[in-house]
């Protein structure tokens, strides 16, 4: 029986549990023994002109090796010329031209936390002391904070751009679109700004020696980082080695290599000394990119019988001070605007605006949770308006199984799915009817603690850049062991276990003999890495393809060794032995075959690309209890179906779902990165930024469902982001459902106690 689909515990864990991982700050490589520490001097003001920087006192402080500012950036190639592209979707990102982002701030700062200078010291304690001595003169400018202020444009971040709107897409509303509807509901809602907060923040170490730059960086994409640096520093990519050691979580915020890490890598070359920087959490909360930060205007209309006829989504994406990936995220939101529904008329549009806040980039889901949150709120608002059970409204409108592949008017082609089955499975698993009955009893009694039942049905897109592909190389060594070199990048997902399972399944070589290597561009120069839930369906398939290739080579070699025809040879998958069909006595081991392979060795390299993405789907149900006197919400149960095709290892897939659910619940109930009107972050530590803890969560109820993808041989879709996509709106809908009988129709996220209480009070007053 194949190991695929079975519950295999991770090979990564014994090391992580007994001696700990080797994250960048832990590296004790000889090349880094003399590494000096980098401490950043960051802007404390959201928007200002820099009128002077005095580093003289800092240069005199104990242990200071160097203090560097924009004035020292004289050895870099000129920035790329203006691409000439403005205001259309699908732009290369980040935007150049008037929107260009420097390394150090030059004459203007645009967000609190923007790098102004670095102090390099022998140790980290000296760095914090010396950084306090760097004196920067700022001439404050009016800060742009929030969607409305950005659009109003009274203060501009980039005067040369003449506007704070960096990108626009989509046409004006079709006035006739909602004509045939009995009921139309429109609402403006906010999908708030979140901080990704991987437990390991950003970290980088760099060394320039013998004409080569070696950079150890906490990244999801070593290979992409290498090309970014080659461009930024004017170096041949071959002169750069990037190593991603253990990475303590990414969640999209460690895609590629960011500005601050580039500064450290540049500085190591500039001063000719190895450097290391591991940010503090206070830096992380303002310096690492944030996620979400969209405002939605949702408009939905349909019949009183529950049929949705038209939907429009208008997105404003706050992309923070510089249009990095935030300029692209609403493209995905619009692409997935329709959700899992069969709606005749759908429109979506977006604008991307800059504000004096931390730049926005990917965060677990990256544009898709926002799309799901918008339509799932819209469906519930519609259900409330026509007085129909929200489960029933979903069942009426979900795309039926016989319509796949389904071409969405938003441009996506949903591959496979049974959306109604996912809904029904969750309703049955949760005991929906009994929950509604209990809710009714509590309402009848007027209990202080009211019950909320929230649903979210979703479809999402994974491996959206499937044609970017992924690489794998597989070597079978003469001792019978295997090394897999993958372009995919692990930071907690369990790649090493999963790839070894694929090898065992294909070659019959036990997992213990398989070593997986990732994240070193000297060993794996080409690859893409990990984001967009792409690893298994691209990187995993690449490993499998390489194994198949190696198997065919081995068949030839074994046939030669056994003097039999290739067609008569078979691999005994249980024992990992090559034999002439029906004659086990003649068998050859993998070691023997590999030893016979000659100089070239037994090896295969694959760059696997796929022509189209996959579309996982599911339904989440969140059961909450709301204290109607205080507004406090408690999540009691969370029941989900997350169908991501054929599951390779349920242990890993469930782990991905768990983590995503918690992050989704956190967005719905607790977390928000808040700025005051001056652009000062007021949730700048983990005391104020309400990262969800074990005490706020129940155990989750995961139901299994596997509808295989048909485009790849593993039948796999991505599972990394389903949790946030489904859990966020399910939980938000649940809170609102709990108090809907009091007249509440909407509560923006996070549904904190004061916000829920205010909604209840407002509804009571207006009655």
């Amino acid at each position: 029986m194949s190991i695929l689909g079975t519950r295999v515990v991770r090979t990564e864990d014994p090391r992580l549990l007994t001696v700990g991982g080797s994250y960048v700050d832990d590296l004790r490589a000889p090349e880094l023994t003399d590494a000096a520490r980098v401490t950043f001097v960051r802007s404390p003001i959201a928007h200002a002109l820099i009128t002077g920087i005095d580093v003289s006192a800092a240069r005199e402080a104990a242990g200071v090796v160097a203090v560097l500012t924009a004035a020292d950036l004289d050895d870099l190639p000129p920035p790329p010329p203006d691409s000439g592209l403005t205001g259309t979707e699908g732009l290369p990102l980040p935007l150049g031209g008037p929107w260009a982002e420097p390394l150090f701030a030059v004459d203007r700062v645009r967000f609190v936390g923007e790098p102004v200078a670095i102090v390099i010291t022998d140790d980290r304690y000296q760095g914090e002391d010396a950084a306090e001595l760097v004196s920067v003169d700022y001439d404050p400018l009016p800060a742009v904070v929030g969607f409305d202020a950005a659009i109003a444009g009274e203060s501009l971040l980039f005067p040369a751009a003449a506007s704070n709107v960096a990108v626009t897409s989509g046409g004006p509303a079709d006035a006739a679109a909602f004509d045939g509807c009995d009921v139309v509901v429109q609402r403006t809602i906010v999908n708030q700004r979140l901080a990704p907060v991987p437990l390991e923040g950003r970290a980088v170490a760099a060394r320039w020696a013998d004409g080569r730059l070696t950079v150890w960086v906490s990244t999801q994409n070593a290979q992409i980082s290498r090309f970014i640096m080659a461009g930024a520093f004017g170096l041949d990519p071959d002169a750069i080695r990037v190593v991603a050691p253990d990475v303590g979580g990414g969640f999209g915020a460690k895609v590629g290599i960011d500005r601050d890490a580039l500064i450290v890598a540049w500085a190591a070359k500039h001063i000719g000394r190895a450097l290391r920087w591991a940010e503090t959490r206070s830096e992380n909360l303002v310096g690492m990119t944030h996620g979400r930060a969209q405002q939605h205007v949702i408009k939905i209309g349909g019949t009183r019988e529950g049929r949705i006829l038209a939907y429009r989504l208008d997105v404003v994406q706050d992309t923070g001070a510089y249009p990095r990936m935030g300029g692209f995220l609403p493209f995905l939101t619009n692409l997935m605007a329709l959700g899992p529904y069969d709606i005749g008329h759908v429109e979506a549009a977006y604008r991307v605006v800059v504000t004096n806040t931390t730049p926005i980039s990917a965060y677990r889901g990256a544009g898709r949770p926002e799309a799901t949150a918008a339509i799932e709120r819209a469906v519930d608002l519609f259900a409330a308006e026509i007085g129909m059970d929200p489960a029933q409204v979903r069942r009426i409108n979900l795309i039926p199984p016989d319509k796949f592949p389904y071409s969405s008017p938003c441009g996506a082609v949903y591959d496979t799915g049974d959306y109604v089955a996912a809904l029904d499975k969750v309703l049955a698993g949760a005991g929906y009817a009994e929950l509604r009955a209990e809710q009714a009893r509590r309402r009848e009694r007027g209990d202080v603690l009211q019950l909320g039942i929230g649903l979210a049905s979703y479809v999402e897109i994974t491996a959206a850049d499937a044609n970017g592909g992924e690489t794998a190389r597989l070597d079978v060594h003469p001792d019978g062991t295997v090394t897999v070199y993958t372009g995919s990048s692990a930071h907690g997902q369990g790649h090493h276990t999963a790839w070894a399972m694929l090898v065992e399944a294909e070659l019959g070589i036990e997992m213990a003999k398989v070593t997986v290597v990732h994240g070193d561009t000297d060993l794996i120069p080409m690859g893409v890495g990990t984001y967009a839930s792409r690893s298994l369906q691209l990187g995993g398939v690449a490993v499998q393809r390489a194994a198949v290739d190696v198997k065919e080579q081995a068949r030839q070699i074994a046939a030669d060794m056994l003097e039999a025809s290739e067609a008569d040879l078979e691999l005994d998958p249980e024992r990992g032995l090559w034999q002439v069909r029906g004659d086990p006595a003649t068998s050859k081991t993998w070691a023997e075959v590999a030893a016979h392979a000659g100089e070239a060795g037994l090896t295969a390299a694959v760059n696997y690309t796929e022509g189209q993405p996959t579309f996982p789907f599911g339904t989440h149900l969140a059961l909450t209890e709301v204290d109607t006197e205080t507004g406090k919400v408690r999540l009691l149960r969370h029941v989900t179906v997350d169908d991501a095709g054929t599951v390779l290892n349920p242990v890993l897939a469930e782990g991905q779902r768990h983590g995503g659910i918690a992050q989704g619940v956190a967005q719905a109930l607790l977390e928000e990165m808040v700025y005051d009107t001056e652009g000062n972050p007021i949730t700048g530590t983990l005391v104020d930024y309400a990262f969800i803890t074990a005490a706020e969560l129940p155990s989750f109820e995961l139901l299994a469902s596997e509808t295989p993808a048909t485009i790849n041989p593993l039948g796999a879709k991505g599972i990394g982001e389903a949790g946030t996509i489904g859990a966020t709106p399910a939980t938000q809908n649940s809170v609102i459902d709990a108090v809907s009988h009091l007249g509440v129709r909407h509560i923006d996220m996070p549904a904190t106690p004061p916000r829920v209480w205010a909604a209840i009070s407002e509804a009571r007053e207006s009655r």
Partner: protein
Amino acid sequence: MIPAQFSYQRASSVDEALELAASGGEDAKFLAGGHSLLPLMKMRLAVPEILIDIGRLSDLSYVRDDGSHIAVGALTSHDDVARCTLLADELPLLAHAAAQVGDPQVRHRGTIGGSLAHADPAADLPAVAVALDATLVTRGPSGSREIAAGDFFLGLFETVLEPGELLTEIRIPKPEASGWSFQKFTKRAIDWAIVGVAVQGGSVALVNMGQTPVRASAVERALASGAGPREAAAHAAEGADPSDDLNGSRAYREHLARVLVARALEESLSRS
């Protein structure tokens, strides 16, 4: 993040601690568990030049039955207070509240005296001390003092302690009325209270409803004149001066105080 430089001195007795403090003057701070002071120092919001570590004065870590009252040494950790069977029997309000402070790691290090002397209005134990009519015993350059908890707190992070004066013991009279309740309202379990309520018999004090722990005198008067819980609780915000911040507006805190006082009084009644 790392504290600015300071000189570390370790006291091996209360007398030595007082001597070190006297010679250190305004630049010196006592360090007990360090869970209030060190976080501020790491943020460089506090930059004492001298830290006098009193953490080894194990003779200040005790809970003792002194007949009419219970004496708790200032260096008793929150965890020891929370697990003390004598306190569970005699002063369950204190034991229960101590178990709500921070998280287990914080409770292992943080001390009752440190929490009171730090005087954070969002901290749990100052209001508990007020509700229990505790007396705070200090030693300083000018001798020993006994200060009523209600007189101890002056403002945000501000007490009547003089420079070089050390809180050594918390003396709590055994309550006459047995009912008690502690209501701590937070966004997350780990958070500081948005509002908290400590009730012992007819004594009611509030957490985070002003710059100091607030005695809910109007509630106490209403109770004394025979009002029921809900009726008395309507007066909960009278005289309070809560802040308006990320975790709640002033009006929300006033509302919470009324709701939580009502719940506390009902729970207290059910225990009496």
